[in-house]
């Protein structure tokens, strides 16, 4: 029991990311409204970003910007344990950009769909298609 609790506490960030991701995934599959699906899609993407950011955390380390960058003691030795892992941050900057690009395209498509069918509910659109 204590093992379980310590495991839950030790990795709670990972549990939260999985929860968020499942919320997003469920919304993409099960929601009926096209814009709601897009919201779900974004939650899904940010959950993955949360996962990557969680990888980068290091106990007792600070943000990945070097102190004394320039100036008199610019060339002092830097220790890797003092700074957070910067690589996942870089990857996630890219992923956020990709997320907003996808969002823009998805919303443009949703507007096109709305212009064609005058509704955003998927079942109503399918009913309209079947009638034709």
């Amino acid at each position, binding site marked *: 029991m204590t093992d379980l609790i310590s495991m839950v506490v030790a990795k709670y960030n*990972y549990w939260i990311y999985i929860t968020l991701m499942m919320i997003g995934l469920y919304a993409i599959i099960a929601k009926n409204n096209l814009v709601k699906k897009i919201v779900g899609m974004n939650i899904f993407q940010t959950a993955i970003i949360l996962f990557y950011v969680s990888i980068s955390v290091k106990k007792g380390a600070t943000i990945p910007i070097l102190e004394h960058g320039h100036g008199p003691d610019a060339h002092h030795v830097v220790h890797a344990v003092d700074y957070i892992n910067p690589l996942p941050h870089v990857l996630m900057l890219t992923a956020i950009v990709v997320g907003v690009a996808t969002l823009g*395209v998805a919303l443009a498509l949703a507007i*096109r769909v709305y212009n064609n069918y005058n509704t955003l509910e998927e079942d109503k659109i399918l009913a309209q298609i079947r009638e034709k």
Partner: protein
Amino acid sequence: MKIIGLIITVTTGALLFYAAGDFPAWSDPASPASTYLSPHFIEKTMEETSVPNIVTAVLADYRGFDTMFETAVIFSAGVVCFFLLRISRREDEEPETRYYRHVLTGVTIQLKEGHEIPPSADFERIDSMWTPPDLIIKTGCRLLIPFVQLFALYVIAHGHHSPGGGFQGGVILGASVILFAISHDLRTAVRRMSEKLIGILCAAGVLIYAGTGALCLLLKLNFLDYSALAGVLHVDPITARSHGILIVEIGVGIAVLATMIWIYNNISSAGRYRQGL
């Protein structure tokens, strides 16, 4: 659909929960992710690129190729939004009745049967649903926007030393123009920054990035190896890397600025470029 969704979600969740058991403990300094590649970045960045913000250095130099494509992604999103939504003048039937507003007095004129007033400073074209922008909001935004833009320029220029960089700065610049479009109306914003200008800026931003890379290639080094620029900029190769990062960050900033405005313009007016929000 709800049940299928639930089944898929629960299965995936169970798999992920199962796998998370084997992860190294959270925030463990000895985990492979923190000991394999990242120490090199943290310890060598200053020597190799002379940029204190490691994220900027890795973003624009070590993994600069990713970032070039990230800029290309945002550019293609802008083009896609334009391609999908923009209604060309040929297909867009102009309303028979046009409305004009005299700027100084606020008098609205209605012209029927397709008559037009030639563009001038006295009259502005408005839509039938036009609502006058609120004075307080308009003045407030007008006060705010220069400071927002100044901050954005700081973020781009100071990305080497503090959080930020071309991408964040570009988004803030774009947001300032979007704020202008919201507080006034889209027509005014488009008049200040025409569609053609936005389209060309978008491509120009990515072109600065890819062009810098191609320049390195022409200078007989590998693509995006900024140390090739040392000869052109008359500095040592390490400072050249730092300058190269600044150049591509500016390119990213321009591309992102233009694309954000482009996407907003197309989405908020559904491609008609009339009123906006």
